């Protein structure tokens, strides 16, 4: 085994805190438990309170999880967990969990269910799915998912012959950005985590990325480190976020005009010859075309468009260039803002390229060099898709994760063929997709709807059959390939046995395969150990020590995989057609889109209305954690941020409850006003995920207001299908 040199150094650094307070060195979960004696057990595993997959260590006493700590070896957690990670125990022991399979006993939506055995529920699901596949074809069964359970049900659908599988993480989040960076660099900018070398950055530009509130563990550790080292933060955000409060430059931009700022910056970088000439020459194509295309985007023009002082625009970018290439314009994450978002992401990618940040210290590190042997445990290849899937809609660059609303549209209109059943696992579609009216219409028209989840959310409670998954602390998943600067492998394994009659998603998927007559796609073996046995075989195929992972460190490094910067013997590899960074995209041109981003103004709110923008709370993951005890206690309801002057003008006091009504006349639950200097006068802001309409979530139900309810309008990005969701306007109704 053992530890890589890197891990050893981490350990050495941790215990260097002084003799008196040398923290108990965490060398091995098993060794630590032995040292403490008694009924203590430490279980290394992976968190799923969000999707950053931090390494966690569960302390279990007498069969109960009593504490969760960050795994010091895991590069995503580095010994620490965020508030949500710490509160995972609250999810595990939440009384409101789904406890046993349930079958709808009345009209859909009324929430009347009867308890069922697993055998009865799974038999019913398999019969319904078979009947629909026979009548309409397997493509009539669609799936939407988020998080670990998706893998197991993707397997079921593919085995049946359907490829109608989509994840909201694409069109409602980061897919747009990924496509733009693939078009430019031939690589995504990394998922969890983004490949930003913030630890070493001299200047960091954040466009709407509110680190601190957007709580991704290791990324925030690096951000704090950068701030402490004196790195300059340039924060572009209509709201004075936590990140803005750490910044040297806060640019309170007019919402929807970020691309204007970026194009003017590109113009300044080129016209003042501040770009990395050697790098641009060596690694890029299309420089002259970009130069020509951005010439019209002057700082004067951008100042007018963005409502930022011209001096601030110019000074910020000069500061950025002064320290290039040890700087980064953060690629961002949630990107579905205005419906022209691919081009904004392209502008960010181009700016990074001109500054030469890709493969440079403090910029974007290069992907870890590691090859994992392919492993599918001897399962047969999937049958061909019965019919071409509809998950790409009419979007030429929609990615493999699929466009959720394209599935929804086909479900409603039956074109080009009917979709009659949904299998939804781990995602609350009513809160993740824009325009809840359409989501509800699609569900109401289904012949069959099965939900697999932890909690009785508003979406789950519309299903015909509900299958209760156990939490991440009660199940195996993975093994996970972890790609940070180095490559590694992490494990998720149960700290305790599943509570109630809940089951791991792998088991549910596998049993479903058997009931569908697709046993060859099921997990080999019958018992509850079957998946763990499969993980052992996978570890062997990958050349990883399973005992080390499961009993000791929970994470192992792939040796020599870390080569973050460009050197003579580590040249960058760009996966584009030209094998260079494509500043000018012939691929986009070929489909009729602007090969260099051009500015398109977005619609502005009418008089007396505000643009609705939304974001995150550091203690919540979307709508998933609102009901979790300690997190709910800390942040029970969201507030609507309203500029203080606007509040005074409207005669609204700080802390007063109001109702918001959007352009379609839709009203949300009452919500408290935060009258603040921290936001522009033309927009209001609220944290996403609150305002559940789910009576069985005893704490979260009706707590705060639901931004997604007010997002009844969305504009699709024509390149990727991303749903621009910051295009809704609200007025404030005082009598709540």
């Amino acid at each position: 085994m053992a530890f890589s040199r890197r891990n050893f150094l981490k350990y050495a650094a941790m215990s260097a805190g002084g003799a008196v307070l040398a923290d108990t060195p965490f060398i091995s979960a098993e060794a630590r438990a032995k040292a403490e004696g008694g009924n203590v057990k430490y279980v290394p595993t992976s968190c799923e309170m969000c999707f950053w997959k931090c390494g966690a260590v569960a302390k279990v006493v007498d069969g109960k999880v009593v504490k969760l700590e960050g795994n010091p070896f895991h590069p995503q957690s580095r010994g620490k967990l965020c508030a949500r990670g710490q509160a995972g125990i609250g999810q595990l022991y939440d009384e409101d969990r789904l406890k046993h399979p349930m079958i709808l006993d009345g009209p859909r939506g009324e929430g009347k269910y009867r308890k069922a055995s697993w055998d009865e529920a799974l038999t019913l699901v398999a019969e319904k799915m078979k009947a629909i596949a026979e009548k309409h074809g397997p493509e009539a069964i669609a799936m939407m998912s988020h998080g670990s359970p998706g893998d197991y049900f993707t397997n079921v659908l593919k085995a049946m012959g359907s490829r109608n599988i989509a994840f909201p993480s694409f069109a409602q989040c980061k897919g747009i950005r990924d496509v733009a960076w693939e078009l430019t660099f031939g690589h995504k900018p990394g998922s969890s985590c983004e490949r930003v070398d913030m630890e070493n950055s001299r200047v960091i530009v954040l466009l709407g990325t509110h680190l601190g509130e957007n709580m991704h563990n290791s990324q925030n550790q690096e951000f704090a480190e950068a701030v402490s080292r004196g790195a300059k933060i340039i924060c572009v955000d209509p709201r004075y976020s936590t990140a803005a409060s750490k910044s040297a430059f806060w640019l309170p931009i007019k919402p929807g005009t970020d691309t204007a700022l970026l194009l003017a910056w590109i113009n300044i970088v080129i016209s003042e010859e501040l770009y990395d000439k050697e790098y641009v020459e060596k690694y890029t194509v299309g420089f002259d075309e970009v130069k020509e295309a951005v010439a019209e985007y002057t700082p004067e023009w951008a100042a007018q468009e963005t409502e930022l002082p011209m001096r601030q625009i110019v000074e910020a970018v000069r500061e950025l260039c002064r320290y290039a290439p040890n700087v980064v314009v953060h690629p961002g994450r949630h990107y579905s803002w205005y419906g022209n978002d691919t081009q904004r992401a392209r502008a960010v990618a181009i700016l990074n390229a001109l500054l030469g940040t890709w493969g440079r210290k403090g910029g974007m590190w290069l992907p870890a060099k590691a090859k994992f042997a392919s492993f599918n445990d001897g399962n047969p290849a999937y049958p061909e898709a019965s019919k071409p899937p509809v998950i790409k809609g009419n979007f030429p660059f929609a990615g493999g994760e699929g466009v959720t609303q394209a599935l929804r549209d086909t479900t409603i209109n039956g074109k080009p063929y009917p979709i009659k059943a949904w299998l939804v696992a781990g995602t609350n579609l009513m809160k993740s997709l824009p325009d809840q009216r359409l989501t509800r219409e699609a569900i109401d028209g289904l012949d069959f709807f099965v939900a697999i989840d932890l909690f009785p959310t508003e979406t789950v409670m519309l299903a015909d059959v509900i299958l209760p998954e156990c939490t991440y602390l009660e199940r195996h998943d993975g093994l996970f390939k972890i790609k940070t600067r180095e490559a590694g492998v992490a494990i998720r394994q149960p700290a305790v046995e599943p509570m109630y009659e809940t089951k791991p998603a792998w088991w549910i998927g596998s049993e479903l395969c058997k009931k569908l007559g697709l046993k060859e796609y099921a997990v080999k073996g019958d018992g509850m150990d079957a998946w763990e046995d499969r993980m052992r075989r996978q570890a062997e195929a990958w050349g990883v020590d399973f005992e080390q992972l499961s009993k000791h460190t929970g994470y192992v490094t792939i040796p020599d995989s870390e080569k973050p910067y460009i050197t003579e013997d580590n040249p960058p590899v760009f996966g584009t057609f030209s094998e260079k960074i494509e500043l000018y995209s012939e691929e986009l041109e070929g489909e009729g889109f602007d090969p260099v981003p051009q500015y398109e103004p977005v619609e502005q709110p009418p008089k007396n209305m505000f643009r609705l923008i939304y974001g995150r709370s550091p203690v919540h993951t979307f709508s998933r954690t609102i009901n979790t005890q300690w997190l709910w206690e800390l942040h029970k309801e969201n507030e609507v941020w309203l500029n203080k002057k606007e509040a005074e003008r409207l005669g609204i006091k700080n802390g007063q409850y109001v109702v918001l009504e959007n352009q379609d006349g839709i009203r949300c639950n009452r919500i408290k006003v935060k009258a603040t200097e921290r936001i522009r006068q033309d927009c209001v802001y609220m944290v996403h995920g609150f305002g559940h309409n789910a009576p069985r979530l005893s704490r979260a139900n009706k707590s705060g207001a639901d931004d997604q309810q007010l997002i009844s309008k969305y504009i699709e990005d024509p390149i990727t299908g991303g749903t621009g969701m910051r295009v809704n306007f609200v007025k404030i109704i005082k009598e709540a």
Partner: protein
Amino acid sequence: MPRYAMVIDQSRCIGCMACVVACKRENDVPPENYRTRVLEIVQGTYPTLTTEMRSELCNHCDNAPCVSICPTGASHHEEDGTVQIDRKKCVGCKACITSCPYNVRYINEEHGYADKCSFCQHRLREGKKPACVATCVGGSRIFGDLDDPESEVSKILRRVGHRVLKKEVGTGPNIYYINQYPKRA
């Protein structure tokens, strides 16, 4: 004997509340009670604003009013300089709560005694740092022994300007606030 103190680098705090939840779990703090909190204090007018991220907890004062006012001796100093509560001696009279200028104590309603941050005394005995420090995502909370000149806290306080809360009330707090450490750029 050590003399424990905490240094809080406010520039590193990102307001993520990991410390708050870690503390709640580690110490079984009852619902709606907290032993530590993080305040985000914003001043100025749009668009010229400043923020102070301020983590607050028991200051383990050298000259602790809660100790001098406690009628039963429940609130007391230990040899390591920390202020602790002997739960058996506490009668829940709330004198300490009213005397504390930092508003960091509460009554455990189920058991009737006063409670507050102990610097995770039980963890210190095992050689571990307090739970809030161990999980501090921004690396804002730094803990150690002021009697050890080589400890991180001693070194920081020698090098970097610092302040305490409500110095004027003369309680001799042991929570020190700094901004930007280490400042290397």
